């Protein structure tokens, strides 16, 4: 793989360009905050520049190649305890000051309806800069080289699919976000985060049947804070033939049995299980009801803190924005709060939330550093960082050998959970029966359902460190207007006893 600097976007000396931009952002930030200080209790301004590149091939042809470059700023103010937020993609001091005044006007309008006034927990104003590690700049890898890699992988999917794969696709994507945060309290933080990901997807079609198989985990999108080295580590061509073969085999596989069985979830499915049933319900804004108008609230209400049995003693779940390489890894959140590691569930007991400065203050604590915005034009919300399940001490083989009548399930395909995050039903791409301690037949479209604390309470085995892997979830939707967050989930496979499977089969 060559790494010639023939990226599609022509540019000059990068460092000087970045410094010029950051110097301008710093100057505009200071001017905006000077303008706002006499008018409001608190203000912050974020400049965000995001560039991306996406390359996809499908069925022997280019599906799309695109490059994007977006930038703008958002200003958040707190006036008389009420929030106002305004944003713009237009440049210049005049626009910055106009948007600042718009934010103040909006905060004033918020106060027309009486109600709770926001108070912020304290934070030491940070002056810092941070860049995520990136060994090989993914933007410097030529598009021709990306296409060659993807065409090779995509061809092997079709070869593996033996004529039954109707759609074979392969893709890579990368994104670099540069952002600054400045607050009226004196914080100024610069961050640069580079994310990369890629993958393979095959759809096999038979009479009245459609089956998907993918590698490494469901789609072809961003999967971690890393450079092109992450794509090289995936070995897309080396996994392509299997993806095609298994997609075709799923057409002939037996349906998922209906009933109650022990299930082992591969780490690729544990990602979704953790995300939906632990990540979202531990968000403190949901708990306080501010997402009730859209995605819902949470069953993990504050009186349960430190007491409620969320899961078995095998279950320890941690929000960790500091773990290297995660898609939810950063140095500071979008309130300028340092990244942290927070234990959410400690050996089965619900023990903490992810929080913002405002929500933490309501519980008399400090922010967990979880406020992030999807770009310059969105107000920060509490978002997952990397929500990880601590490894246990089982190997996958040991779990299988110790299972009499069960199913092993891999890679999420469908998901749904109620508005308090209790009743869920999740489906996976593929499964295998487990009979008397051994893997058996392949199963298509397996699914399972449960109630969150009952389900985690039935967890009796978690895989060890060798099976633990940090995955990326680049499509976490929340809020209005919808914001898409990039988050991570580290986990090993885990076993859950007596789970209802094969719903609607």
């Amino acid at each position, binding site marked *: 793989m060559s790494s010639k600097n023939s990226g*599609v*976007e*022509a540019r000059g000396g990068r460092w000087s360009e970045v410094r010029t931009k950051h110097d301008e952002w710093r100057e505009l930030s200071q001017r905006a905050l000077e303008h706002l200080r006499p008018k409001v209790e608190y203000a912050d301004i974020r400049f965000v520049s995001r560039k991306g590149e996406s390359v996809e091939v499908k069925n022997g042809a*280019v599906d*799309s*190649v*695109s*490059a*994007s*470059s*977006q*930038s*703008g700023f958002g200003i958040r103010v707190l006036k008389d305890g*009420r929030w*106002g*937020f*305004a*944003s713009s*993609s*237009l*440049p210049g001091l005049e626009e910055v000051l106009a948007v600042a005044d718009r934010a103040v*006007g*909006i*905060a004033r*309008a*918020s106060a*027309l*309806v009486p109600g709770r006034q926001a108070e912020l927990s304290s934070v030491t104003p940070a002056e810092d800069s941070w860049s995520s590690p990136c060994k090989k700049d993914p933007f410097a890898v*030529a*598009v*021709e080289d990306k*296409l060659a890699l993807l065409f090779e992988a995509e061809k092997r999917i079709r070869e593996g699919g033996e004529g039954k794969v*109707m*759609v074979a696709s392969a893709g890579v994507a990368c994104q670099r976000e540069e952002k600054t945060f400045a607050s009226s309290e004196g914080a100024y933080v610069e961050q640069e985060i580079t994310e990369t990901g890629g993958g393979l997807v095959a*759809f096999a*079609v038979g009479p*009245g049947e*459609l089956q998907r198989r993918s590698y490494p985990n469901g789609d072809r999108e961003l999967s971690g804070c890393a450079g092109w080295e992450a794509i090289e580590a995936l070995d897309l061509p080396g996994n392509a033939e299997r993806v095609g073969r298994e997609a075709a085999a799923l057409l002939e596989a037996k349906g998922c049995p209906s009933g109650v069985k022990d299930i082992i979830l591969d780490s690729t499915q544990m990602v979704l299980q953790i995300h939906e049933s632990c990540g979202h319900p531990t968000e403190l804004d949901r708990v*306080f*009801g*501010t997402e*009730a*108008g859209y995605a*819902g609230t949470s*069953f993990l209400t504050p009186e349960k803190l430190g007491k409620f049995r969320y899961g078995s003693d095998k279950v320890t779940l941690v929000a960790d924005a500091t773990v290297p390489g995660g898609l939810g890894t950063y140095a500071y959140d979008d309130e300028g709060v340092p990244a942290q590691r927070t234990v959410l569930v400690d050996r089965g007991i619900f023990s903490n939330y992810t929080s913002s400065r405002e929500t933490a203050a309501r519980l008399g604590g400090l922010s967990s550093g979880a406020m992030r915005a999807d770009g310059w*034009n969105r*107000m920060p919300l509490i978002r997952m960082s990397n929500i990880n399940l601590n490894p246990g001490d089982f190997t996958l083989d040991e779990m299988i050998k110790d299972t009499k009548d069960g199913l092993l399930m891999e890679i999420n395909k*469908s998901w*749904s*959970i*109620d*508005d308090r995050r*209790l*009743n869920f*039903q999740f489906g996976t791409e593929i499964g295998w029966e487990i009979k008397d301690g051994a893997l058996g037949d392949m199963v298509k479209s397996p699914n399972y*359902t449960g109630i969150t604390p009952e389900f985690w309470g039935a967890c009796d085995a978690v895989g060890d460190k060798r099976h633990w892997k940090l995955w990326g979830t680049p499509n976490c939707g929340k809020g209005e*207007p*919808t914001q898409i967050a990039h988050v991570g989930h580290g986990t090993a496979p885990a076993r859950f006893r007596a789970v209802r499977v094969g*719903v*609607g089969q």
Partner: protein
Amino acid sequence: MTSPDRLLEVLEKGLRFSAADQTEVVVMAEDTYLTRYATNYIHQNTAEANVEVSVRAVLGKRIGLAVTTAVDDESLRLAVKTAENIARVQPELAEFRSLPDASGTGDGPATCAFAPRTQAFTAEERARSVGRVISLAVSRGYEAAGAFGAGTMTLGVANSLGVRRFAQVSRAGLSAIVMGETGSGFAEGLSLDVERIDVDRIAETAVGKCRAAQNPVAVDPGDYEVVLEPAAVGDLVKYLAFLGLGAKAFQEGRSFMCGRMGELVTGENFTVWDDGQDPAGLPLPFDFEGVPRQKVMLIENGLAKGIVYDSFCAGREPGKRSTGHALPPRARFGAIPVNLHVKTGDSTVPEMVRRTKRGLLVTRFHYTNPLHPVLTTLTGMTRDGTFLIEDGRIKGPVKNMRFTNSVLEAFRGIEAIGSEAVTCPVFRLGAVRVPALKLRKFTFTGATEH
């Protein structure tokens, strides 16, 4: 806000800067405002001014796409050059025919998709409106949450083959969830004209639903007759569109319409079409390639009739032309119908309830997602008001239930159709106009604790 003249200038400059064989420039300028409220106060209040320019450069049969939010000359030149560079390094795309030309587009219909009043609606007016919802909820001892959004989008499309399209569209929507100790109610309004959002009616409906939903009891999962209110129907129809009514899914064999054109796929009393020109919905007079939106019959009297196309997918089939359903250039799904209309009938929800022996009345669904695209099997939860019906009367509220059901199969058992269509949101771009439906059988596979 960027002026229309400035956006027109960007379109023409983008074309002028290009040396490609064919070039398309799409400008989307959005000014959107949203007031969110929860636990009886406004907790989030936002404004956004965004301009996004997409450039597609075509060299022979190779296409490059670049997107930027900067509209100065240097940035535009860079975007055009980037799109050309992307195209240059690709192999030829054998199935690509051409960007759309202007020959079939004419002057286009004079659809009114813009209400000046929506554009002028202020943060104070949004606050006072949600204040009325909150006041009513509080007066009954309940808690209110939701959002009031209003905004405009200016869309311009120009290409080197002579297409020139420019339109302003507006959109306003108010949602209200009113919560009591043990149950909640929901109502919403959506229109291009903010004046048509009936704030008090929405508040009264949500509060009334909330009152009726208190003290729900658990009922066993299983097969039930159902009366689905429009918001619930809209959710199911939206997924039908997403899963199988676009040409890309059809051509790739992923659509439930594959091999079934002309066949009965639902009951004979179900008809759905897409019409981006109908001002009753949220019209957008042309698509993101500048092609006027055609009315496309999708399922008529139960028969599979058609799917929607953009220019690329149309080019794969001899004699086929785009139906004007291209999504924004960066979308990966291909064409999808986003201005859906379901044919109304002559019934009402109370009448449907009277005709129900034992069933459930569903206000809306939550977190619906597909399990099997070809079988159109979806799963999701009920939310904000689910009621047991026995012997033609509402017996009382029930705890929320999970359904797992094929939509097409459910629509084979439509026993009554509402006479009034309601506009419900479809993703970010469009709307679905749907009536209430009474279905003979709907399968609930689980229940939750509230």
